[in-house]
Structures are given as C-alpha cells and as structure tokens.
C-alpha cells in the first residue's frame, strides 16, 4: 500500500523537524509531503533540508485549500492511503500505525484519531469543551453517528475518500464539514483513541471570535449543503 503522510504547515519552524522525524520512525515505509501554505519563516527551508516532498503555495490559502492540494497530489501520484498530521506537533506519531490499520483491514474509508475516546491527558478548556459538544451534536443530527472528536485533524483515508476530498473540501475549518460530506457520499468512518499533546510551539489558531465564526460557518454550510443534490 503506497502511503503518503501530508503535513499542512503555516509557520511551524519550531516543530516541523520533530514531526517529520517522528513520522519516519513510526511509519518508515510512507512518503512524507509537506504542503507549505505561504509560511513567512524558515518552515519551507526545514522541509527541504529534511528532503521530504514539498509543495509550496504561492500565498496563504487556508488550511482547507492546503490539505486539498495534498489530496490532489496523493490522488494523482497514485497513493492508496493519505494521512493528515498537523505540523505543530500535537499529533503523536506513534499512533500512525493504528490510524492506518482499519483502512488496511478494509473496515472503513476514513479513520479519525480521537483525543476523547480514551482518558489520555488532553487538557481541555471550557470554551473548547462547549465547541466540541456543539460539533458532536451537529454531526449527530446530520449523520446519526456519534463522533467524539469531529474537529480532529489527525486522519487517515483511502482512495475513495481522497477522490471526494480532492473534488470538494472547504477552504477554512474543513474537518466537520468534510466528515459530513464523506457520510453523504456513503463513505464509512471510524474513530480510534489517540492522545494529543497540547501545543508545543506557536499560538493556537482559534480565538473567541474565530471560534464563533467557526461554529456559525460550519452550521450554515452544512444546513444549506443538505439541500444540495448529491452528485
């Protein structure tokens, strides 16, 4: 199985090298692709020094577009499995093999690493808990499935999912919407327990106002999207 690990990065010079090293030691047979979303620090240089595959966006296009560029590359280069790992070091690479296993066994098309399935020491704040509850309910309403960590960006997917995501993937805050569009396409997803580190470097990308925008945007997009005919 040809496997590609996609790391979307925007100014992750403090953490990127560690992430790449971790992936190589736990999933040595996989290729690593860094999609650099217009970083203004030395992130791009670090990726080139580490001799991973590198794609450079000409300007900052957002996390969704960045992942989609990676999906397009994976699809066109004939990869069977693509894995998304954040560049900030919050995803533990030792979970990579168990993230891929359900795909290899053919149980599902999309695997989500959930930090809430086990009691794995992820310190959560009250606003984050509220947000997670909100998105869990949203996913439950639109799919009837209970997903504990719908915003998790630690995911592995097969080619069927890649085909969908390279066709349509939201440009910002894509995770929850992508889950629902995968469900609507008849794809199966499954969660596995992982632990995540709190951020090692940089600042979290989500403040109060953007959290509100996140919830409103995703709700709007999913509600209106449910009136669209499925292609």
């Amino acid at each position, binding site marked *: 199985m040809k496997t590609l690990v996609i790391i979307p990065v925007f100014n992750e010079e403090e953490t990127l090298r560690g992430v790449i090293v971790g992936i190589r030691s736990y999933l040595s047979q996989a290729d690593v692709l860094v999609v650099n979303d217009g970083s203004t620090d030395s992130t791009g240089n670090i990726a080139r020094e580490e001799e991973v*595959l*590198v*794609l*450079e*966006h*000409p*300007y900052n*296009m957002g996390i969704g*577009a960045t992942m*989609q*560029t990676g999906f*397009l*590359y994976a699809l*066109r280069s004939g990869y069977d499995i693509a894995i998304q790992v954040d560049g900030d070091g919050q995803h533990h690479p030792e979970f990579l093999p168990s993230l891929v296993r359900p795909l290899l066994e053919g149980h599902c098309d999309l695997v989500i690493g959930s930090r809430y399935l086990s009691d794995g020491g992820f310190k959560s704040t009250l606003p984050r808990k509220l947000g997670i509850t909100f998105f869990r309910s949203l996913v439950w309403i639109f799919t009837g499935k209970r997903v504990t960590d719908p915003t998790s960006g630690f995911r592995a997917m097969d080619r069927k999912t890649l085909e969908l995501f390279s066709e349509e993937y939201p*440009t910002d805050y894509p995770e929850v919407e992508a889950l629902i569009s995968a469900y609507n396409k008849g794809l199966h997803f499954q969660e596995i327990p992982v632990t995540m580190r709190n951020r090692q470097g940089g600042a979290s990308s989500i403040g109060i106002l953007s959290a509100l925008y996140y919830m409103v945007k995703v709700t709007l997009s999913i509600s209106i999207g449910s009136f669209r005919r499925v292609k």
Partner: protein
Amino acid sequence: MGIRLNLFAIIGSIILLLVILELIRRRYLQERYSLVWIITGAVFLLLSIRVDILYRISNFLGFSIPSNALFFFGVLFLILIVLGLSVITSRLSVKNKILAQEVVLLKKRVADLEKSLRSPE
C-alpha cells in the same frame, strides 16, 4: 420638477452613459458586466427626459412623493448590484484556488522532471 433640474438630470445621465462606453472602449469593463450599467444609464436618461413616467409609477405604487420612489428603487438596485458582485467574487475565489493548486502541482512535476533529467538512472 423645474426645467433646470430636468436639464441637470439629462446631462448627468448622458455623462454616465459616456463614462460607461469609454470604460468598455478601454477594456476596463467587460461587455458581460457592462450590460447592466448601460441599461441603468438608459433608464436614468429616460426618466430625466420623461419625468411623468416616474410620477406615474410613484402614484401607481402609492409613494407619497416621487423622490421616495426614486430613492427606494435606487437602493434596491444597488443592493442587487452588490449581491451580484459578491457572487462574482465567490466564483472568482474558487477559480483562483483551483488555479493556484494546479500551478503548485505543475511546479512540483516540472521540478521532478528536471531532477530526473539531470540524474538519469
């Protein structure tokens, strides 16, 4: 409406039409987006020549004074134009994203090809 105001409105409408035509001539405005503006200019011109049309419309719809009707339709028209522009912007940003992604992937392919040319196996 006094004759002076009437004349002023006619001249204004003609200037608007001329500006639109000049923008099209210089290719600052594409024909497909210019149609709505040409129609706007023409309607302005018609209304300033035949002010009685505005009076009749305003009477028919029950506006207390014709200028209210003018303002109402003006604002409505602007809202529609801005909405149309938002649609165009959205479409452009989607196309722009796809274009950028294709460029990124092409650059990667070119770089890979160059590398394989420089070091034939």
